[in-house]
């Protein structure tokens, strides 16, 4: 009976399995999760890898167009990411290190674009600077063509600025003001303080943020589609191959090429940077202290900068609204609801988007918390694999996910093509890492003794989960619900291959309308999208009251 006489703690698969056997329900749940991951992550991606033939691979590697698309993708996303990071950093620095007036306003405005599809910046760009752009053509009478890499650079910079700002702000917030106070106390100030303490402490977090923004811009589909013109990137080229040339294998090949850099970035971020970080991006902000480390001149420069950024954001949203509600902006300024009625009220796509996004938000949130509970608080074989699979989709471009899903579930016992289900699956895969991350961050802040107390009083894992864990994670749960709902409403790349005539979505409508030149209806749909998101949050707040924290994220 004395099996453990060896001089070590019991561990390993056998031990963990034996412990699990005591709780069959838990074992069942774990098996179920792995089954789901197997069917909806591993199987589709293996399938996608198997579609292209050797000739396709060879063709892709040697074909000039494809090499070019690859170079474009890397080049444009490097440009956009760098620019968005610089702007985001300055903005975040102004928010966290100065007492400039109107900070609350600046913070809200910077978040506004996250409520709209990222192609809204592309849409606004076309309307302002396009071939018939309001500013370039109508005002200045120019016949310029800003489409191509330059336009894409501008548009993506604006599109990814909010993400950069939010992430960097999180990094800066988690730097303890005490360290800066200590440095100031030792005589450091101004740029010296910034360079030797703030920047040094923030560097790993900034690198993480850079990679996160990088993954998103690499995978961006809508903006290159709208303003890239002949400047093809991998995401749009894959789409063109599948939809234009009906060459599914080539589309698959290209999307695999797109995955290579994003996966690389993912591994660097997850297994290198996170381990070398002085501060955690998700760390609790240190309460209460106002950091003021800049001179008056710098303060006013920063203020001017924030005003400028806000002006651009408001200009974008403003121009979209104006196009949506005037007969022909630039020529005929009569107010009209016509486009709004056509694009939003008469179109089923908004309703479809809403249904799919609500379902996705619910599934993602619940699944995210359950996964976090399992990987963080239960020991079982394959725990790190589960953690990896839950985070993996962060690195997968939406077009890749979409393509893999249609190839995997086109026929056979699980023929899902053309259904709402496949759309929800795609969205859920895309959003799962967000829900999971939020839950992990929330759960790590809850004392283990809470669950132990529950277990000690007779509750098994399931009872403990829904009676103790879920209620205590209210905040993480709210954030995850809000985020995945918003993101799912707005996503384009993930669902571009998944929609069907029966289940068309609003975000796709915006893009195709804009692409075909129906800018007014496209704008009206975008406005309708933002309104739908707002109204949904409002209703949620009304019904759930204190059960959810939507507006103080």
């Amino acid at each position, binding site marked *: 009976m*004395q099996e453990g006489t060896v*001089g*070590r*703690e019991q561990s390993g698969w056998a031990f963990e399995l034996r412990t699990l056997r005591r*709780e069959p329900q838990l074992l069942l749940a774990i098996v179920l999760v792995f089954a789901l991951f197997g069917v909806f992550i591993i199987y589709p991606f293996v399938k996608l890898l198997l579609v292209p033939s050797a000739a396709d691979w060879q063709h892709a590697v040697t074909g000039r167009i494809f090499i070019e698309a690859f170079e474009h993708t890397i080049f444009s996303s490097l440009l956009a990411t760098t620019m968005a990071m610089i702007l985001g950093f300055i903005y975040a620095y102004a928010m966290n290190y100065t007492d400039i007036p109107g900070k609350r306003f600046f913070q809200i405005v910077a978040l506004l674009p996250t409520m709209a599809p990222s192609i809204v910046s592309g849409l606004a760009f076309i309307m302002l600077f396009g071939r018939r752009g309001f500013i370039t053509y109508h005002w200045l009478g120019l016949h310029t063509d800003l489409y191509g890499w330059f336009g894409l650079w501008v548009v993506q910079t604006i599109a990814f600025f909010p993400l950069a700002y939010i992430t960097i702000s999180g990094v800066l917030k988690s730097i303890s003001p005490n360290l800066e106070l200590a440095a100031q106390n030792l005589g450091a100030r101004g740029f010296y303080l910034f360079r030797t303490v703030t920047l040094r402490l923030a560097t790993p977090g900034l690198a993480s943020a850079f990679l996160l923004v990088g993954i998103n811009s690499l995978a961006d589909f809508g903006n290159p589609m709208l303003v890239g013109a002949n400047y093809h990137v991998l995401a749009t080229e894959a789409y063109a191959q599948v939809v234009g040339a009906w060459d599914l294998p080539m589309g698959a090949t290209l999307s695999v090429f797109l995955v290579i850099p994003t996966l690389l970035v993912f591994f660097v971020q997850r297994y290198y940077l996170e381990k070398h970080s002085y501060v955690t991006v998700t760390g609790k902000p240190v309460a209460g202290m106002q950091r003021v480390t800049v001179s008056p001149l710098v303060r006013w420069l920063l203020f001017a900068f924030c005003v400028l950024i806000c002006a651009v954001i408001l200009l974008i949203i403003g121009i979209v609204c104006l196009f949506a509600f005037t007969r022909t902006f630039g020529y005929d300024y009569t107010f009209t609801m016509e486009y709004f009625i056509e694009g939003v009220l008469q179109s089923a796509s908004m309703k479809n988007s809403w249904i799919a996004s609500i379902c996705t938000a619910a599934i993602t949130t619940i699944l995210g918390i359950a996964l976090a509970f399992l990987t963080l608080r239960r020991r079982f074989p394959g725990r790190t694999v589960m953690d990896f699979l839950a985070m993996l989709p962060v690195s997968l471009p939406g077009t890749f996910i979409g393509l893999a899903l249609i190839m995997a579930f086109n026929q056979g016992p699980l023929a899902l093509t053309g259904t709402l289900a496949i759309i929800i699956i795609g969205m859920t895969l895309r959003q799962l890492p967000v829900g999971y991350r939020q839950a992990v961050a929330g759960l790590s802040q809850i*004392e283990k*003794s809470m669950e132990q107390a*529950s277990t000690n009083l*007779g509750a098994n894992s399931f009872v403990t989960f829904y009676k103790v864990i879920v209620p205590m994670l*209210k905040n993480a749960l709210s954030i995850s619900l809000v985020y995945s709902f918003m993101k799912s409403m707005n996503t384009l790349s993930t669902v571009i291959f998944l929609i069907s005539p029966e289940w068309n979505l609003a975000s796709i409508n915006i893009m195709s309308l804009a692409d075909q030149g129906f800018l007014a209806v496209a704008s009206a749909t975008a406005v309708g999208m933002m309104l739908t998101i707002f109204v949904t949050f409002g209703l949620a707040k009304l019904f759930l009251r204190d059960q959810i924290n939507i507006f103080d994220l």
Partner: protein
Amino acid sequence: MADIVMELRHIQKFFGSSQVIHDVSFQVKKGDFVTLLGPSGCGKTTILRMIAGFYEPDSGEIELAGRRIERVAPYDRNTAMVFQEYALFPHMNVFENVAYGLRVRHEGSDSVKKKVGEALALMQLNGLESRYPNQMSGGQQQRVAVARALVMNPDVLLLDEPLSNLDAKLRESVRVELRAIQQQMGLTTIYVTHDQQEALSMSDSIIVMKQGVLHQQGRPEEIYFAPKTPFVADFIGTTNLLPIEGNGSCQVVYGSDPLLADTICSVGTGVLSVRPESVRLSRTADAADRVNVLTARVTHSMFLGEKRRYFLQDRQGREWLADLYDPGIAIFNGDVYMQFAADRSHAIVGQEPG
């Protein structure tokens, strides 16, 4: 024996490859208040958690109420625990917190109400039913944590330093109260602390541990007056430890001085423990018939209110402590005689001073 409700047999526990519990065995009688006492990091919490089921012993057996439990899931053990940091559920009010375990068991709502009411009354928490943990003081939270455990009527109640977050005054009153409730309910209790005062004043039985090794189990008086190892002697209260050599009679030799000790009548070397309060001081060697007289020099002394503590050095250069109660204002200094009664010293055979 019929009245043994819990027994640990040869428990070992490793964290990674470092062993934190070394072959610990002990028995607990039904209705006893047993204290695990030892310095921080000695493995008290680990033992408690193995009983509760949060850790699994790497070898050894745990029996509770006639059942082997070392492999039983923690929620099936009926070992209600009071956590050091209370671990009250922040999203539940007092009533819901205390009712939690009963509701998990699916007890009827009338029975839940009744039992929770009783537990709250016992812990003097009436009227606070709808408060949330963050609306209560530390002392009140602590009471709720105890009520939540008591209401389960566990086979054994586990308490992990439950008083360590309270201030000194409160700690003393809660100590008395807790003991009274425990005796009133006849609840078998394992209590973890590093505070010897707490252990001595509350326990039926004390288990002294050091670095994962059980040094001694016994009644408070046994532990205090008859420590089995120098560590126990030193850890419980304060003591003077002298290396001694036996000479076949009931006399031992300390250096060249013969000493008389009741507890040692065998040959061998060991350690003699003499409590500071047993040492008497005098300026003159008036009573030649007295035994156990040593000369020493006072190095300094310290006024502590009810007593004065003297720091002395004997002829062999060893430091001594002597406590003089009801000291008055006269102070010894310079060369003095130290003396202690034969029945006030305790020999620990075959040990080196700790």
